[in-house]
């Protein structure tokens, strides 16, 4: 027996706001959250801009001692998870705590703490390294901390699939609830890798734009795009079986109706240019959904030359001529790329699209590229009621992950 799976709450911390609602309002206004890097001096770096989270106070979400020994990436997850639980009205108690799972992944983990302690190791020696460094830097610390902070004791897993992490976490949680392994789940992703090593590493790999103008740096699908902009933050959703949601009178915001994931088996950073495996992932996600139902595609749309062209090719190969009449947009034009959090935040965006009938734009879209010739909802949000949407995420290592969501009825 399988269950219908619904979203009943979500929370977010992003470069455009420290709640899901604030982020959404800024997205539909076409606002950019990208600025010159402030958390370290980027003078010596080829890359000067990023989508940093602003004014985040961890102590608003956890006690000061927990905040001190929790890396920024896990702090974001705690904040997003607590918002999501509050939004859904889920009460964790002795009756249900073992029936709820947590799947909060991270693409990178606690690189802030790691870089700080490597510096201590090199300057003061091994006896001065903090005993907290291992729990602070390991990628599962986010999901572990969320468990401690919420009292949830069911299935607990941190997924790592690069920039697909958030989508895979929601997708696996969806499968587990669907098949009755758990009644509900907190699922999402988190990352905070805007650090000297993180920025230098992505820059050296040629993945980041060197455009020093923060407002125009991220321009997915535009002919002048030349790399992504790093972002940070977290998105966490509450998923639960429809029965459980109805039983406890939870707000039903959207239904998840499909998830597909494949890999390229090709290259550690480049996508397969034909988009063949991405097509298969979309097809898997739409196993129980008609292709003609899809009214919006939330693109991975990183603003790199390779991704945006191969993603466009995959959409066209999947939907044929209909691809030209489906609005496709990339919120990374405004948020930058939140890495492991991106897919989760974008799942929340999909819920909002279904709830509010507004499609967020792809900003900085000015010059068209013959390889990118779809309707990217350029520069301005669009009012459009849609019933079924998909969200694409692709990641270094050849991950292709796709979620399908539908308006609940």
């Amino acid at each position, binding site marked *: 027996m399988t269950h219908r799976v619904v979203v009943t709450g979500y929370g977010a911390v992003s470069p455009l706001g420290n709640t899901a609602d604030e982020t959404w309002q800024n997205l539909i206004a076409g606002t950019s959250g990208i600025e010159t890097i402030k958390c370290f001096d980027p003078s010596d770096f080829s890359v000067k801009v990023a989508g940093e989270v602003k004014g985040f106070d961890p102590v608003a979400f956890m*006690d*000061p001692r927990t905040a001190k020994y929790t890396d920024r990436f896990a702090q974001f997850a705690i904040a997003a998870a607590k918002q999501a639980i509050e939004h859904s009205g889920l009460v964790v108690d002795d009756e249900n705590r073992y029936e709820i799972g947590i799947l909060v992944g991270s693409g990178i983990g606690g690189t802030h703490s790691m870089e700080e302690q490597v510096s201590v190791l090199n300057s003061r020696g091994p006896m001065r390294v903090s*005993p907290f460094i291992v729990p602070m830097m390991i990628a599962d610390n986010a999901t572990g901390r969320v468990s401690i902070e919420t009292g949830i004791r069911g299935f607990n897993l941190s997924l790592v699939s690069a920039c697909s992490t958030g989508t895979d976490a929601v997708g696996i949680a969806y499968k587990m609830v669907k098949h009755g392994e758990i009644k509900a789940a907190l699922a999402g992703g988190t990352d905070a890798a805007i650090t000297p090593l993180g920025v230098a590493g992505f820059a050296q790999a040629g993945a980041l734009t060197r455009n020093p103008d923060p407002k125009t740096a991220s321009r997915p699908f535009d002919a002048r795009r030349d790399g992504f902009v790093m972002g940070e933050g977290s998105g966490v959703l509450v998923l639960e079986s429809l029965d459980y949601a109805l039983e406890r009178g939870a707000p039903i915001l959207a239904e998840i109706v499909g998830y597909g994931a494949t890999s390229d088996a090709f290259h550690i950073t480049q996508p397969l240019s034909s988009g063949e495996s991405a097509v298969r992932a979309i097809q898997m996600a739409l196993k129980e959904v008609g292709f003609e139902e899809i009214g919006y595609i939330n693109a991975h749309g990183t603003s790199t030359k390779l991704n945006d062209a191969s993603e466009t090719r995959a959409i066209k190969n999947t939907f044929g001529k209909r691809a030209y009449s489906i609005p496709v947009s990339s919120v990374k034009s405004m948020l930058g790329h939140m890495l492991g959090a991106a897919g989760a935040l974008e799942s929340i965006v999909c819920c909002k699209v279904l709830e509010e009938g507004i499609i967020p734009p792809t900003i900085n879209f000015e010059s068209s590229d013959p390889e990118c010739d779809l309707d990217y909802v350029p520069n301005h949000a669009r009012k459009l009621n849609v019933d079924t949407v998909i969200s694409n995420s692709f990641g270094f290592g050849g991950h292709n992950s796709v979620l399908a969501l539908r308006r609940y009825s």
Partner: protein
Amino acid sequence: MVFRTLILAPLNKDLQRLDLFPSLLYIITILQLFGTPCLQNFIFKEGAMDIHAELKKAICKVNPGINEENITPEATFIGDLEMDSLSMVELSLAMEDSFGITLPDEELAKLTTVGEVTELIESKLGK
């Protein structure tokens, strides 16, 4: 370092003027080599540094948000102050910074109360 800089910097200037620079430079070097413990012992002997107060500061640094009133000599680290084995190691690192002494994990592990650690620090400082 701060003490040495503050005390010796103005001294340096005067010494040059008095033409005593070479011989006193030797004394300064000796002071720089052994300055930190000497100065600290001096400060402790004069009573300028209250060990319990300094330890309290280190405990607060390791446990932000802690109620300072709970840090009494009788308070236990693991029970009353809600610390764990990791934060005890973090505390020993903070004490190294505060007192310039090394407290091996195994020595610290034998002690359960704030008062016992204060006594250990006193004995290490030869007070």
